[in-house]
């Protein structure tokens, strides 16, 4: 009984003490925490229990132990910002660490950078070499071909890599698509001719139920595509097509187009 009474007495005494420390702790929290660092503060059992319950937040705050308490006591949003900031700092750091002499571009280097795009512009493609006069003459040649043969729907001059250059059409057709496809067709035809031991390919003829498409080379870089109705004789189409291709070749050669 005596012992129990002593224990009760001691228990009450410690309870008042702990209450006081809590009050102090509260006061400390209200005070600017920069005066007392967080790791020096005495914690009550209740507080330590709270800390144990929230290990994740503690582990997050631990690295900032040397930082004054007012910086460690942050809202979740702030802590999220803090977590994000190192990433941005690391991004910015290299730029800040780069010495001034490295960021400055040497005059010779800057001159090279300026010259590089200009170089690509200056190099003319075979089609860019064709001047307006040659173009007009070639168009006249195509129009003459169209007027000679009655059954023709259209004629297209294009590069062997599939870019259309000139077109004279009686009805609307997608010349850019046709140029792309006929260039592939001619390339394939030439390969098949070589594989089958028949030397060079002269024409690729696509015989359809409502007309024909004939593809032939003008020179090393250009090709001609003739689109005709089924009424037109194939022999006539091939003959006049070949003649027009030869004429166009002469016109482009005269205009200074490099075919080699």
């Amino acid at each position, binding site marked *: 009984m005596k012992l129990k009474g002593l224990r009760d007495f001691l228990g009450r005494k410690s309870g008042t003490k702990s209450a006081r420390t809590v009050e102090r702790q509260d006061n400390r929290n209200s005070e600017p925490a920069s005066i007392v660092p967080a790791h020096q503060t005495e914690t009550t059992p209740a507080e330590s229990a709270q800390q144990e319950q929230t290990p994740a937040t503690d582990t997050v705050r631990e690295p900032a132990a040397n930082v004054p308490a007012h910086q460690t006591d942050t809202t979740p949003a702030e802590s999220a910002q803090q977590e994000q900031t190192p990433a941005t700092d690391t991004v910015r750091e290299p730029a800040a660490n780069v010495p001034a002499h490295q960021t400055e571009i040497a005059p010779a280097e800057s001159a090279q950078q300026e010259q590089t795009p200009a170089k690509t512009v200056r190099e003319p493609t075979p089609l860019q070499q064709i001047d307006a006069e040659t173009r007009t003459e070639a168009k006249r040649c195509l129009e003459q071909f169209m007027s000679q043969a009655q059954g023709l729907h259209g004629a297209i001059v294009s590069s062997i890599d599939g870019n259309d250059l000139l077109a004279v059409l009686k009805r609307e057709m997608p010349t850019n698509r046709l140029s792309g496809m006929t260039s592939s067709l001619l390339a394939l035809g030439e390969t098949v001719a070589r594989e089958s031991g028949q030397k060079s390919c002269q024409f690729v003829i*696509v015989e359809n139920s409502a007309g024909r498409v004939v593809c032939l080379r003008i020179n090393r870089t250009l090709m001609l595509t003739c*689109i005709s109705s089924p009424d037109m004789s194939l022999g006539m189409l091939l003959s006049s097509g070949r003649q027009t291709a030869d004429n166009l070749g002469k016109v482009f050669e005269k205009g200074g187009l490099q075919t080699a």
Partner: protein
Amino acid sequence: MSVFHLQHKDSDMPHAEEIQAVLRQCLEYPGVYGVILSTIDGNALEQVLKRDISADRIATMNSSLLALAETLTQETQQQQNRFVILENSDGRIVSLRVNRTLLMTAISYHDSNLGMVLKISQNTANTLASLISEES
């Protein structure tokens, strides 16, 4: 799917002898020196050749050629593709469809008559189409 189907059937292709006979009949015309039957995805199935030619390569390239020509036909609004003719300095190569999955290629000399080659090729393709139904 169609490739596997046709390759599987290739080993025990029905009417194989009859197909060979039809192709040989096509070769009887003096101007033609090679006939290849292949799938539209480029696998050679049967061939009858008088010269040493790589039928596999030609079949592969002709399948692309025919597919491209059919697209060109659609783009130019010329309804249906019938033939693709390669006019070369030493001969001609005529490609045409047999049915939905097969195509035929006829290779001829330069002195052959184009009209005759086209007619014989079309007749052979029709005979082959009647022999090979799409199910087989």
